[in-house]
């Protein structure tokens, strides 16, 4: 799809020298997120891998204005930016809050729910690397069942992943979307669209993380694709309540050829202690959601 590639904004907002790990799914995603959002954007983010990516004072490798905030306050910080910019008559700027799954599913959920319910005019981005990576791969409520983390080091995580999309959908948002850096054009298109829409928008990016998940940095795109091929991650958007599959997921749904989750699981060190029963449960969890999505996509 060369014509697709040509439409991508050629401007780079992430300069060389960013501090994320080699093969980081977040840095790949962030590059396209910023290309889609363009100059008139302010981002705010809490403590997480993105803080590290942005660099150490007094240098930064990102050319978009950025405001650091505390871990629980990302969406409130965005509310303050929106209110402050309104107060000083700057209504031309897109305010973007961006946090990890820990800063979103766990600690930041209160502020996020508040800002979403108030209809704050901003884009909230959760990059989901399925754990507290900044502090060394601890469990979060986004960690999948069966994964080893540094706080589930022996028994693996016993509970399934929290369905944050359903929680956010319950806020009646004008736009929600799931994306993956393994499918950058799909990601880019969704952020271009999100920028045009008014109100609280929620975007979730499934970002593979080599050190946290236990695979080689060169395999980030492969792992990202397998997540989609197996239905662990489904690419879709919900616009004004209307659900629509997109990109590779749409093809998989049409052709009915999604892969078993084992193809995804077997390539990651974090699942090395997963039991057969957990694998079955993970497959059931994926299938149940997949079928729900299929129904919604038809309806």
């Amino acid at each position, binding site marked *: 799809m060369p014509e697709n590639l040509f439409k991508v904004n050629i401007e780079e907002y992430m300069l060389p020298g960013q501090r994320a790990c080699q093969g980081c799914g977040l840095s790949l995603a962030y590059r396209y997120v910023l290309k889609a959002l363009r100059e008139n954007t302010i981002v705010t983010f809490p403590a997480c891998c993105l803080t590290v990516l942005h660099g150490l004072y007094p240098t930064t490798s990102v050319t978009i204005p*950025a405001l650091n905030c505390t871990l629980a306050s990302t969406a*409130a910080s965005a509310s*303050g930016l929106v209110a402050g910019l309104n107060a000083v008559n700057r209504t031309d700027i897109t305010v973007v809050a961006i946090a990890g799954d820990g800063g979103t599913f766990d600690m930041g959920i209160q502020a996020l729910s508040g800002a979403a319910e108030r209809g704050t005019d901003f884009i909230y981005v959760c990059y989901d690397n399925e754990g507290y990576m900044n502090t060394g791969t601890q469990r979060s409520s986004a960690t999948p069942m069966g994964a080893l983390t540094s706080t589930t080091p022996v028994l693996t995580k016993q509970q399934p992943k929290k369905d944050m999309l359903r929680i956010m959908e319950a806020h009646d948002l004008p736009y929600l979307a799931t994306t993956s850096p393994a499918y950058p054009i799909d990601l880019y298109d969704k952020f271009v669209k999100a920028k045009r829409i008014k109100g609280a928008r929620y975007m979730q990016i499934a970002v593979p993380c080599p050190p946290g998940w236990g695979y080689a940095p060169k395999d980030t795109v492969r792992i990202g694709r397998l997540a989609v091929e197996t239905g662990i991650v489904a690419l879709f958007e919900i616009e004004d309540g209307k659900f629509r599959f997109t990109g590779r997921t749409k093809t998989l749904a049409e052709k009915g050829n999604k892969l078993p989750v084992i193809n995804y699981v077997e390539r990651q060190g974090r699942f090395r202690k997963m039991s057969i029963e957990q694998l079955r449960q993970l497959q059931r969890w994926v299938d149940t959601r997949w079928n729900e999505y299929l129904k919604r996509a038809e309806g």
Partner: protein
Amino acid sequence: MAEVQIMTGNQAAALGAKLSHVQVVAAYPITPQTSVTEMLSQLIEGGELKAEYIRVESEHSALAVCISASTVGARVFTSTSSQGLLYMHEQIHWAAGARLPIVMCCINRGVGAPWTIFNDQQDSIAQRDTGWIQIYCRDNQEIIDSIIQAYRIAESVYVPVMICYDGFVMSHTMMPVEIPDAAAVSDFIPPYKPHTILSPEAPMNINPVLFPWRRANTEGVLCDGYMEMRYKLQKALDESREVIASTSRQFAGAFGRDHGGMLWQYKTDDAEIILAGMGSVASEATMAADMLRSEGIKAGVVGIRVFRPFPKEDVRAAFRTAKAICVFEKGISYGYEGALCSEIKAALYGTDIRLPIHNYICGLGGRDVKARELAEAVRSSRDAIAAGDTEPVPKWLNCFTE
């Protein structure tokens, strides 16, 4: 022209914010602060105050909103009490560290567990080391005037200011208040000029990660490390003493009321024994001093108005000729004594001012503190001192300790 109205402390606070032309308000209700947030919503929804009102879901978020709005150049206001202030604690540090001129009212209330909705000052005393300026008011007039002063102070030294006043005793008590003339207030507080504005025109990364050492920028110039930034905050607080005092004097010049700058004194010229305190307990102490004087005891009062930065030199001057001090406090640093008492002792250290200092913990969780009880405490201190008891352990006033 200035007009006098009878109003509560909370009304005075809301009017102070309005007169200061705040542009963003974010707050979460808590007794006894609630009516400040209600009145501000009324003013904003009624079109009397042009400002954004963000009805946040928590106090942590209230201050987060103020921090970010201030960063893009808006003048902001919030208020809270007790649990709300404690819940904000992380953001309270963040605001000072980011050097934002935020003004917040703390309507003082005790903290749990167990629950109390009534007044003491443990909530704001617990925020002593956050890098905020703290001003304690003694009446409703001082609340409205101090908020106006606070914006001028905060915006010249880039340090946030907490205006503290006692819950119920002031927040819900009607007193006559002269409303400063709106045009005169606008002249007194020039428009807010942020030290840096976050905008797409000048992209930067604000409040990022710092390492222990200074680091060079892309031009090779060494820039502050964490410790240099912290030193600058301390220096700003040190230098704010002069700004607070001059703002108070200039306010007196413009509006005819002088609340005393760093501290105020009542009949201290010839006083042998001085009662010291902050907020309403200090104004109650003025009545106690009068009672004592009617009995021939030369008593006076020092009201500490600014607790941070601590008015070390003013304290030394105020107590220079006294023979004894009784410090009355609605809070305690558990495991030691009242925080104000410790500060006064520390301020006198190294001078030739050597005198007995007695500490009374009083009014916790709203327990009554009456002037005659303060007077009685002073009498008992005098007797104890006469008997040679120069530094007793803190006494708990009106408290069954047996």
